[in-house]
């Protein structure tokens, strides 16, 4: 598969109250054309910051300090004018935001909001533009598009509004669609519908999709590959099944074990102690070491490199080093591994 976007040793910093925060710490990531990648991690792990930097949407106090973001042979991390970003934003890479209640303009009709995108990115005008809008609204599953065209966001339910937001993103005919927690604010039944819609659109418009989410159920549904983020770095990346059934990083273990679905009723659920490291300070060694009860001595001293588990699966943990002692993963992870072994004979 062809690489569509390449992130190389990216460092993103923010200036907050006179102090410098390192939000992304030398992260590298390849995104392949036509794939569906899910980025998971807790809030503050940098998953939104990372993807926002692909579109030049970092807050004004943040900047790319080092590293490259290569999109179609251009290093877009170097862009610093709006004019340059407008060649990427929307046209090449579009985004579906989390909260459909706040990402639409309450004072404009739905039709006009979608039309804006169509006019700007497809160069259509007047009736042609309207026709294109009606088609897109139909595409995202909005019934009676003629009537809905003239309505305002407050006349739409949450799920319908999210469909409109998706329509606007797709109207720009992007190559990459970033979905930032696309279903977090929605009910389960609606959530299932929206995920199906996103998958259908991906096929229809041959999109590359990046999902940002902390819901591992959603991830299991949509992802081809999973990247696990912790404290501004990708600690593990691999095919969906590799990360789920054969996770290697202790943080991946902790994340999976704390799911109620893997818990045993009546017994306490696995929970991660402590808090993520303060990114205002330089992080030494493995960022997760302080919360990892089975951390090795080296975890506190030297940052682990990526170790390859398979050609498609790698993790940043010293546990994979040949010299590392055998560390027992939690019970629920052992069960997943048994399934993995059964799967692969």
């Amino acid at each position: 598969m062809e690489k569509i976007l390449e992130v190389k040793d990216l460092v993103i910093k923010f200036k907050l109250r006179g102090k410098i925060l390192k939000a992304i710490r030398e992260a590298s990531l390849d995104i392949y054309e036509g794939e569906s990648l899910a980025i998971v991690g807790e809030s503050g792990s940098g998953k939104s910051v990372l993807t926002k930097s692909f579109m030049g949407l970092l807050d004004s106090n943040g900047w790319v300090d080092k590293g490259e973001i290569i999109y179609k042979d251009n290093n877009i991390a170097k862009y610093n004018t709006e004019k340059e970003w407008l060649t990427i934003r929307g046209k090449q890479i579009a985004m579906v935001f989390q909260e459909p209640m706040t990402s639409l303009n309450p004072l404009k009709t739905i039709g006009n909001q979608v039309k804006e995108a169509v006019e700007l990115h497809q160069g259509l005008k007047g009736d042609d533009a309207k026709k294109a809008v009606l088609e897109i609204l139909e595409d995202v599953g909005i019934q009676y598009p003629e009537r809905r065209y003239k309505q305002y966001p407050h006349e739409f339910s949450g799920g319908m509004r999210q469909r409109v937001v998706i329509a606007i993103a797709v109207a720009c005919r992007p190559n990459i669609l970033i979905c930032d927690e696309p279903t977090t604010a929605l009910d389960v039944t609606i959530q299932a519908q929206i995920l199906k819609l996103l998958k259908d659109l991906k096929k229809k418009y041959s999109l590359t999709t990046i999902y940002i989410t902390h819901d591992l159920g959603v991830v299991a549904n949509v992802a081809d590959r999973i990247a696990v983020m912790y404290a501004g770095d990708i600690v593990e990346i691999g095919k969906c099944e590799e990360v789920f059934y054969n996770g290697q990083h202790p943080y991946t273990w902790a994340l999976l074990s704390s799911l109620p679905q893997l818990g045993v009723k009546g017994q306490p659920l696995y929970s991660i102690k402590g808090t993520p490291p303060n990114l205002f300070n330089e992080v030494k060694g493995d960022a997760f070491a302080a919360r990892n009860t089975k951390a090795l001595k080296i975890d506190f001293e030297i940052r682990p490199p990526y170790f390859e588990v398979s050609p498609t699966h790698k993790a940043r943990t010293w546990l994979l080093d040949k010299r590392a002692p055998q560390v027992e993963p939690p019970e629920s992870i052992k069960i997943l591994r048994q399934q993995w072994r059964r799967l692969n004979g």
Partner: protein
Amino acid sequence: MGKEKFLEVKNLRVEFGKKKKKFIAVDDVSFNIYKGETFGLVGESGSGKTTIGRAIIRINEISGGEILYKGKRISGQIDKDLDKEVVKNIQMIFQDPMASLNERAKVDYIVSEGLYNLKNYKDEEERKAKVAKALLDVGLLPEFASRFPHEFSGGQRQRIGVARALIMKPDFIIADEPISALDVSIRAQVLNLLSDLQKRMGLTYLFIAHDLSVVRFITDRLAVIYKGRIVELAETEKLFQHPLHPYTRALLSAIPIPDPRKEKAKVLKAYAPSIYEYSKDKPKWVEIEREHFILANEREIDEYRRILG
């Protein structure tokens, strides 16, 4: 578990608005909660699950039916002593710890607000001791009393919300989406805290949520609510294994499963209320097998009986 009826809800009806604008939020809902159990209430937003919780704690006025707490009626007009007892014994934990704590008050005040209202403490010293104990109970340090809510993380804030309920020494807690606004890793902590407190203090919970995986983990019995009516009620595991009502089946099929092979192969079941003809044969609330209730009409009851064998 001794099946002592702790809370009984009988034919509860809640309406909002008047005349033309009248909206029936909860319609003919009946269920019992037994002592010491965790009773779950799930449904989509707008289904009326929160309204039921708020009706029990007497925030929302009810338009019909009655609510009994330990055999005594607590809905409608009640005398002062009973009111005081209810205010003390039934407590609520709210969804969003960012919004439910007064930003301008110190933890000390937030946690003791209930005490101030009922004046059930002798002197400052006793109040302080109670605050310290409540904070310790939820795994926070007594020193935190002098801090403001913004100094805490989401999980710690939710602990403050729990401490504020516990200080009243309640025996019944209504938890309205207590972990929905929290991060995955913190959810586990708060869930563990709630079950631990239940064991230690013998609490009874009404757990309102829309996240079915959490509900399955924590509740003993579960009611599924759709558009203001409970459509099915059973022991949680039984309901997950053998859902009968088409809405329950649709809802359960929509839960994302964190297992890629199962999740990618799963088939969604849709619920289309319009295909059910209820104009002549009206649905009733029946016990189809022991401890398994369902809303169905005569024809459907026969069908479900056949499925159950």
